[in-house]
């Protein structure tokens, strides 16, 4: 205790007041409401985060699937352009020059 002083007794008496019996109950109700509100917020945030996650996942999945679809559709077109049988290049026959001289000599 603080050293007793006559004035202290009077001040003690002035401050000797009690809150109403309903005070604690009111504060507790306030706290409960605050907790419920906090949980509701948490629920809303969780739902919103889950929704965002689903959308992001869908976008990501779409990006993953799209490149696979392209080769499937273009393969037949490319295949159609390619020849079904291998092209055989035949050798070109060139006549020898000597033969031409012989022919000229014969005319002379």
């Amino acid at each position, binding site marked *: 205790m603080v050293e007793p002083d006559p004035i202290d007794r009077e001040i003690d008496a002035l401050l000797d007041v009690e809150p109403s019996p309903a*005070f604690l109950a009111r504060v507790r109700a306030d706290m409960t409401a605050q907790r419920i509100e906090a949980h509701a917020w948490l629920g809303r945030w969780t739902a919103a985060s889950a929704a965002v996650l689903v959308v992001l996942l869908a976008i990501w999945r779409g990006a993953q699937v799209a490149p696979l679809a392209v080769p499937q559709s273009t393969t037949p077109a490319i295949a159609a352009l390619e020849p079904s049988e291998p092209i055989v290049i035949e050798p070109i026959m060139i006549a020898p020059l000597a033969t031409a001289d012989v022919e000229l000599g014969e005319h002379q």
Partner: protein
Amino acid sequence: MHEWTGRLAGDFVTTDEELARDFDARLVESARLAFRVAFSVLRHREDAEDVAQEAFAKAHRQFRQLRDPERFRSWLVRMVWRMALDRRRGERRRSTREAEHERVRQVSTSDAVEAGERAAMLWDAIDALPEKLRCVVVLASIEGHDLAAVARLLGIPQGTVKSRLFVARQRIKDRLQWLNPTQSIAR
């Protein structure tokens, strides 16, 4: 995976419940202190309860940082004091010390009238103190706080509390003497 999520959810609920339990314990042990600190400033029961309730609501929101009992009480006292002063400043025009006037009005015998007047004068003397001194006087008169307890609540050295208390008492006595020179201080 399922077990892990279950354990995590369980931990979350347990922590939440523990926090709620701890807060309730602090509420029970500090409700009177908060109310009396607010009453010392506002001199009005309903207003004091409102301010104390608001302070507890704030404390509840920050309770993860205020779980230590000593820290909680210290924070609460300062918060209630500040909120009560703000409220009094805001409502100064509305009423002038309803409680003390009511107390004086309610008494019927001459002794009681005298007691009421004395109380009004004492409040007047306390009100006239600078805030630093007033806070020390009020806290020292609530729940039998000793110097160390007041020092802890206000976060100041014990020696400072002692000197402020001495000066405050002296000023209150002087003021009472000035208000009513015929009445003795200690009755």
